[in-house]
């Protein structure tokens, strides 16, 4: 139910559409892109970031929302919290029940390790479940992992860690095959050939998908397999602190049962952090595409244990978050809409950016169009957005394409009486992905012995900007590597006493800097009580 004013604006979009169908907006030169990002990307706004004053990344600038958490104290008192009773004793503790955590758990169990998967909400409540567009892998004849490597590097601003990118692109086809053999219903041609398309920043059509429920299809398949294999899962039991022994090795974690408010002590020879993203921190005050539990817990716990972070100053905003209707503000409109040919159009009915530039560029261009050029469309609640001309898709690919390829999107808008096959949709950048995170090597190891990280919580593989389809890939590649490697390592680990010594040392460092206050972290869940977000 668009307002009359919005319908008038849509008429202009419809007038320019026939011409625009034959038009191709030029791509940015590297210099133009650099200028665009520096002037309009939220990461570069003054007062958005400050240096963290304690810990392994002392002096590094990152968004205030991250620094606030990293400079907080533990929810536990390291001097009095009892560690004498151990509730679980396992080879591999996986913290986080999304795609990375579940992949890790499956591989660890396959390798013969005893596994416990602890997750904050339900098994499968993760950003994985909402990923829509696709998963990249270079398995077509005209493509190769080397070309994929180049795309990833360029997309990341050439800051990516080479070993991590190599692992990502070389493991990719194997990971798709693994998912296929688990029964994932990838969209295929009748002969079994994978249906693949472009994403932002790709030079080959290597995005595999399952309609626009790709993440959900992967997640429910992995979750079902974990259940079939009897992997122990503790739901509603987020970790609040890692444990270390007197030698500084990671030795397990303390979990908190959200429903009974009880703490659980898990002794584990290896720990895999797969806690996902940070969207519910609302960096820069933006709405987010992320799930309810995305509060960067893993970063906080790993940091206290001595793990280094990387690229946290680079936050990914998805260019096309819902700008209208207000009820679903910030929710994801998949890049696939642009991949299928829809153009971004301003209030004058004109294109202003090539739709499949990398996300940081498209986001910045939309912000520039609205803020500097004043060519955005204003919603009844005063927000700005630009049109994403979705009806172009059926015109280009044939009637019914949108319904077939984007059922989740169609349904989302139909619930609010908007038909995206007939009318364009209004979009604006939304907080989407944590490009950086806890630094790992290609074995998914951190600098803390026995501590592994996989998925969005890790940093280095995407550099400063992740390409579409590489996150679903990341979680499978490094989830599997973490699980396999942790299981192998667990065979030789000798643990000492369980301690919270690293927390005590961290509190002491905070106190020395005058930062030891009352604020605690991880926050576990955002607090939206008493207001409309």
């Amino acid at each position: 139910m668009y307002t009359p004013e919005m319908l008038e604006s849509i008429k202009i979009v419809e007038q320019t559409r026939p011409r625009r169908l034959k038009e191709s907006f030029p791509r940015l030169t590297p210099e133009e892109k650099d200028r665009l990002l520096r002037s309009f990307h939220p990461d570069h706004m003054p007062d958005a970031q400050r240096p963290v004053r304690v810990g392994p990344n002392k002096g590094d600038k990152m968004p205030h929302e991250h620094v606030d958490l990293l400079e907080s104290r533990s929810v536990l008192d390291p001097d009095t919290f009892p560690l004498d009773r151990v509730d679980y004793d396992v080879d591999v503790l996986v913290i986080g029940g999304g795609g990375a955590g579940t992949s890790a758990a499956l591989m660890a169990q396959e390798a013969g390790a005893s596994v416990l998967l602890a997750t904050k909400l339900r098994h499968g409540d993760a950003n994985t479940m909402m990923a829509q567009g696709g998963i990249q892998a270079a398995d077509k004849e005209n493509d190769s992992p080397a070309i994929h490597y180049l795309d990833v590097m360029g997309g990341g601003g050439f800051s990516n860690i080479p070993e991590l990118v190599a692992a990502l692109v070389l493991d990719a086809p194997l990971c798709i095959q693994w998912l296929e053999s688990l029964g994932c219903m990838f969209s295929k041609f009748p002969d079994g050939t994978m249906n693949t398309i472009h994403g932002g920043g790709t030079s080959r059509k290597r995005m595999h998908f399952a309609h626009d429920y790709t993440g959900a299809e992967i997640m429910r398949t992995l979750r079902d397999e974990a259940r079939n294999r009897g992997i122990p899962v503790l739901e509603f039991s987020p970790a609040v602190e890692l444990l270390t022994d007197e030698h500084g090795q990671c030795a397990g974690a303390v979990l908190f049962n959200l429903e009974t408010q009880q703490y659980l002590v898990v002794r584990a020879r290896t720990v895999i952090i797969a806690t996902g993203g940070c969207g519910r921190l609302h960096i820069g005050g933006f709405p987010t595409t992320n799930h309810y539990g995305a509060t960067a817990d893993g970063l906080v716990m790993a940091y206290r244990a001595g793990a280094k972070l990387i690229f946290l100053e680079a936050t990914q905003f998805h260019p096309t978050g819902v700008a209208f209707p207000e009820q679903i503000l910030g929710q994801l409109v998949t890049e696939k809409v642009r991949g299928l040919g829809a153009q971004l159009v301003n209030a004058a009915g004109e294109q202003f950016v090539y739709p499949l530039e990398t996300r940081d560029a498209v986001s910045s261009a939309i912000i520039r169009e609205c803020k500097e050029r004043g060519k955005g469309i204003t919603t009844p609640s005063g927000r700005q957005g630009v049109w994403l001309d979705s009806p172009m898709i059926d015109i280009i690919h044939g009637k019914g394409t949108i319904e077939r390829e984007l059922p989740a999107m169609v349904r989302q808008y139909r619930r609010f009486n908007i038909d995206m096959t007939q009318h364009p949709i209004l979009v604006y950048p939304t907080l989407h992905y944590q490009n950086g995170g806890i630094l790992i090597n290609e074995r998914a190891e951190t600098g803390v012995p026995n501590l592994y990280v996989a998925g969005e919580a890790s940093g280095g593989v995407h550099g400063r900007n992740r390409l579409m389809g590489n996150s679903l890939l990341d979680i499978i590649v490094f989830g599997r590597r973490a699980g396999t490697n942790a299981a192998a390592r667990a065979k030789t680990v000798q643990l000492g006493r369980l301690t919270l010594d690293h927390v005590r040392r961290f509190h002491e460092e905070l106190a020395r800097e005058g930062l030891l206050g009352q604020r605690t972290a991880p926050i576990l869940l955002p607090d939206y009580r008493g207001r409309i977000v």
Partner: protein
Amino acid sequence: MAEEKEMVSIYIMGKQYRVPYGVTIMKAMEYAGYRFIRGCGCRGGFCGACGTVYRKPGDFRLKVGLACQTVVEDGMHLTQIPFYPANKATYNLEELTPTLATLLRHYPEMTRCLGCNSCTRICPQELQVMDYMAAAQRGDIAKAAHMSFDCLMCGLCASRCPAEIVQYNVALLARRLYGRHVAPRAEHLARRVEEIKAGKFDAEIERLMKMDRLELQKLYDARDIEP
């Protein structure tokens, strides 16, 4: 512009709250002071955590929606169903055949279906649940898989079924059977996996890994883009 927002009354498990007009049930409950632990997941209509049932005064009809996607109505009497016990069979997908016999062996209660359509009526995704179950009962794995594909596994169908079937678990098995045993394998994918295992791309990747930023940038800018 929201100065004096219009308010409506909703009843959360029988208790009245005044909440702003036009917001979703999820945001209304948080406005009222709830901090979700159960009943909130992706907040975007994908995970099925927030299945909510409601009635309005003077109307016997039971309505349903996802709390994160459904707008409040004045007089709505609602509750969430964050969990419903569900029979889930354990299986080894590798050993199964994509047949009716497989479905029946794991979910024999399928045959108790009365054809009452309660499952279809309660589905927040508006799926044709009874129809996909009918396809399953005919052994049409492909049809059951495709028709159920958008299922969020929210559990509302199972909560209403008089025959005590868990439709979404039957559908999940059908989909996995389809993906593993019916859909043809991607040949090009299998070939590429073998090539990688044989080290065909190792030298090229190693060369790329050693390049500095300038060299990589040159190669990157010179990429030909598949049309």
